[in-house]
């Protein structure tokens, strides 16, 4: 029986508001019982993978939209395809297209920020940031991870990118700098286990082989029956979600149309502009220096 007419979502219960915070769990869709799936992205990271047309971009855009509307949240966007995260480029601190040098540079800056934040946290006699710190959340979103780690740039640059990304993913989770990464190709050379295991949430959209499903979820899940190959190709947005320490569960990611994405991005840009969170106040120091 088709469930489309029933609208299993009572979306009004999901806590979203203009005062949304990234420290709130992020709504990404429903599970197989129609319950909401909420991810605590700040203290974990999210890895999304699956074959083209599986619905990855829906989830990526959901994360970006949530971050765009969230209070005190900054975005760093790396999108080799430009169009997935392009709508948010006006409100992002950095938007990197297919430029691996810029990507490496921004990752280095992020790592410096992370190190500084840890020293600040140390000075506060704690071990991780909390909502009350009033420290901004810096969400790094990478679409088409494979482009940066295998296609663009030289071998050395790709390795440097991978190393920096691994650093950011492992450092970012306690200092409010989570990473959301997505890739089409699921193989060991793009997502080595050492990188994958740093992601607290792993979301496998449809894959063609048990092996590639295991690359995302973890070794051995396919043998236990948790394989992204059994997802119906026509059911876009259906995925297996593995949260740290649990067993994978079936979810259906929420979907935003292009128009809705641009509406959200426009609204977020309009909402953020007066606060000056993304558009820095025009620096007058250079003018003063020139005048002096």
């Amino acid at each position, binding site marked *: 029986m088709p469930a489309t007419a*029933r609208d299993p979502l009572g979306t009004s219960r999901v806590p*979203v508001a203009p005062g949304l915070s990234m420290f709130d769990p992020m709504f990404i869709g429903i599970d197989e019982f129609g319950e909401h799936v909420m991810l605590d992205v700040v203290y974990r990271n999210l890895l999304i993978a699956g074959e083209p047309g599986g619905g990855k971009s829906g989830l990526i855009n959901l994360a970006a939209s949530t971050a765009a509307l969230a209070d005190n949240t900054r975005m760093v966007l790396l999108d080799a395809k430009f169009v997935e995260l392009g709508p948010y480029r006006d409100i992002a601190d950095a938007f990197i297209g297919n430029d691996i040098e810029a990507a490496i540079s921004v990752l280095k800056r992020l790592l410096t920020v992370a190190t500084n934040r840890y020293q600040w946290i140390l000075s506060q006699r704690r071990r991780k940031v909390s909502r009350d710190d009033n420290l901004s959340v810096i969400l790094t979103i990478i679409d088409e991870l494979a482009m940066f780690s295998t296609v663009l740039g030289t071998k050395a640059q790709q390795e440097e990118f991978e190393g920096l990304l691994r650093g950011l993913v492992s450092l970012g989770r306690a200092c409010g700098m989570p990473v959301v990464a997505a890739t089409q190709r699921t193989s060991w050379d793009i997502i080595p286990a050492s990188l994958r295991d740093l992601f607290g949430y792993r979301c496998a959209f449809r894959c063609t082989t048990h092996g590639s499903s295991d690359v995302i979820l973890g070794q051995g899940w396919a043998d236990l029956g948790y394989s992204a190959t059994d997802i119906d190709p026509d059911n876009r947005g259906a995925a297996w979600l593995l949260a740290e320490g649990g067993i994978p569960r079936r979810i259906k990611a929420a979907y935003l149309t292009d128009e809705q994405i641009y509406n959200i991005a426009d609204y977020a840009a309009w909402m953020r502009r007066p606060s000056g969170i993304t558009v820095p106040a025009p620096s007058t120091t250079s003018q003063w220096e020139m005048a002096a």
Partner: protein
Amino acid sequence: MSKSTRGFGFGRKSGTVTVIEQKVSRSSARNARIAFIITAIIVGLLAMSVASDQMHPILAGLLAAPIAFVAGALLWMLFRIWPVLRILWWWTPEIGAGLALVYGWITLANTTPAPVTFAIMAILAGVPAAVPAIRRRITALAWCFIVRHRLRVCFSQFIIANKSGSLPLILWARPTPVGERVWVYLRPGLSLSRLQKRLDEIAVTCHASSVLVELASDSKKAAYLRFDIKRREVLTAKVNSPLLSVIDTTNIPTASTAPTDVPTALDLPDVPAESPLVTATKSATNGNGKKPTKAAPVANTFDDDPWD
């Protein structure tokens, strides 16, 4: 012929059902006997010690004996009829609904004239049948009652917990978008992993498409489980994002999205052969600036020829 029929009937009688009933009956008799003895001893001793304060201990003993016997007998009776009480308890909602229906109907028919009676009945039955939301809600609630009985059938018929045949406590059930969710507290002899091996059989018994069982999330007790009975698929539904409800789409100016330089080389012939992807930043400005003027006519003629 008659022999084989008798044999068949006999075989059925000595099947699983009868064995469990015998087990239950035997265990109930044993429990009743033990309850009788323990109650009689405790009540007898208490009565004797209280009475001996007022009279000679032998007289007190004589007085305590019948009191102990009566108290023990009461407990014995309670234990003996417990299986029947339990069945009545299981079917309380159905019995209550049946009685309410019969007596409600009789009262209604006696107090109102026939056209009014039928009008009220038509409203009572027609509105839930006509309004889809109410109809679905009632159907879902009805399934909750049904599924608790079906789960009990599973536990009494083929998931045998222990020698005395005690059944798990089937707690409340509530509808979910895909079916029902039932909470169960296991009795000694069963475990989560044992149930997980028999999910397909439970699904068949519950007339469901599949069943999942896991620990009830708010508890770490191994005995406290949650059954998810799936009848429908919701993962094929289109899920909307709640973010849309918090944005205002009417009066928002478009963000300053005009990109700095939109490339004009939108076809392969427009891009020079030597332009590699990596060093795009340097060569792109040159290539894009020059190439479209050269290559555009080529692309146009190429496009026009086959289709005109």
